[in-house]
């Protein structure tokens, strides 16, 4: 219990991690979130004051790919510390407890942190037939989500399934699966879509929640703007070829060998918002387009059902006017509220420098 009272700064000192290391971690996060570098010392100060945050992570209709991705992050030493600092009160794949004991762990965490815990969700939630297609410990995931959401300070949907329904919701969607925000409408919700989502985004979201006490500013689909504002195409290193009209038309033609633009091979980069073009995967080793395959649009709603990964955008169903309008309407209300919160906090922080 005593450990729970330490601030992050005190915990760092206790573990012998220097302020220098911590500053470096903050510089890395700030750079990935486009937070001005001059704000790093203020961010570090505020983060050092943070107290342990209770986190409950629920896995619903999912494949565990999201968790696999999240456990591989970019600056292991300090980052692990931040992840260890939050008190992950429930995550069924990572924890030792099972069965009744595990359920008890959730109940205790909920009770002790009612109104304050951060709820992380991966996987979609089936609605059909009262949600009986996805059940743990005799409770449907639909009921579980409703119950847990009630006491949460905020919810982060991890991966495309929790954000938009994803694979579970792909046609013909036999279980009636949806994303979290189609069920919960009265809490701040942030989506970190991606199949899989990028660990750096999760680090950024968690760090800014700890440092600024609020979720970062989001776009119309509730995605953090710091990572999802640009399209893949905006940041693609093959963009110069697109602009010059130099394309690959098959995966083994001259254009492909020369690393030209993959648009004719179905690249969805121009309408896909994600950060892999700059952050890359596997600790910066590479990313899909660098390995010669077009973007499949994994961080956008319904990417499975857009009539083929290899059809050029101009021939496909992406970016229809209705789709864009519907998505815009769904994401506005809460998004705006947390955006205001985050801006206010940023002002506070830069003003306090």
């Amino acid at each position: 219990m005593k450990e729970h009272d330490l601030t992050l700064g005190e915990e760092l000192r206790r573990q012998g991690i220097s302020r220098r290391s911590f500053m470096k971690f903050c510089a890395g996060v700030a750079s990935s979130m486009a937070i001005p570098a001059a704000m790093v010392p203020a961010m570090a100060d505020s983060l050092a004051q943070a107290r342990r945050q209770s986190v409950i992570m629920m896995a619903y209709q999912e494949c565990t790919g999201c968790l696999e991705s999240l456990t591989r992050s970019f600056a292991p030493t300090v980052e692990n510390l931040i992840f260890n600092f939050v008190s992950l009160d429930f995550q069924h794949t990572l924890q030792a407890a099972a069965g009744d004991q595990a359920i008890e762990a959730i109940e205790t965490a909920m009770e002790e942190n009612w109104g304050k815990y951060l709820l992380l969700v991966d996987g979609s939630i089936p609605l059909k037939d009262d949600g009986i297609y996805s059940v743990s410990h005799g409770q449907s995931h639909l009921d579980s989500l409703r119950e847990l959401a009630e006491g949460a300070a905020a919810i982060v949907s991890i991966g495309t399934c929790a954000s938009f329904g994803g694979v579970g919701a792909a046609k013909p969607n036999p279980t009636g699966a949806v994303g979290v925000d189609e069920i919960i409408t009265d809490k701040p919700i942030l989506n970190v879509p991606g199949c899989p989502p990028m660990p750096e985004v999760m680090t950024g979201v968690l760090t800014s929640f700890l440092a600024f006490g609020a979720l970062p500013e989001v776009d119309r689909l509730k995605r953090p703007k710091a990572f999802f504002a640009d399209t893949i195409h905006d940041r693609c290193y093959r963009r110069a070829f697109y602009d010059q009209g130099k394309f690959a038309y098959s995966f083994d033609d001259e254009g492909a060998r020369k690393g030209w633009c993959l648009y004719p091979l179905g690249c969805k980069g121009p309408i896909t918002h994600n950060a892999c073009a700059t952050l890359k995967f596997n600790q910066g080793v590479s990313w899909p387009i660098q390995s010669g395959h077009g973007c499949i649009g994994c961080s956008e709603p319904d990417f499975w059902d857009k009539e083929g990964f290899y059809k050029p955008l101009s021939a496909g169903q992406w970016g229809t006017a209705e789709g864009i309008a519907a998505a815009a309407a769904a994401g506005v209300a809460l998004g705006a509220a947390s955006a205001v919160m985050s801006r206010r906090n940023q002002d506070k922080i830069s003003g306090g420098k």
Partner: protein
Amino acid sequence: MSLKDIAVRLDSGPGPGSPETTGLAVALLREVADHLLTVSRGGDRQVVELTNLPLSDGDVQLLVEKLGRGEVEARISAAGPTEVFETAFPGVWWVKYLGEDDRVITQQLEIGTVPMILEAHQEDIQASARQFPSMFDELDPNQH
């Protein structure tokens, strides 16, 4: 054999990997000049983030040439290495934060007296002030 041994060559246009300059480097140098003026008048430390800019190899080369190398060079071991050098212009520092695998996490130009990562921070100084006296317990009393 590892992935790195397989040679891959991409013919790029302007942008990362290209020898041509894009104009970004000159814009950055002007920004540094402004910051230097601010700091020379006693203003706060200024930081220019290089990582998220689509600098071409040519741009980076231009920055390296124009900024040059100065008197100080340092390597810091804290959460992986960090490389720092002062450019030929005192007060303009090149700071490269690397991961444990030597991959660049962020790269910045810092304009100020001493880069943030080189300074000893108050929290760490306080901790060492607390710890330091314990060495006297271990020292042979006859040597006092």
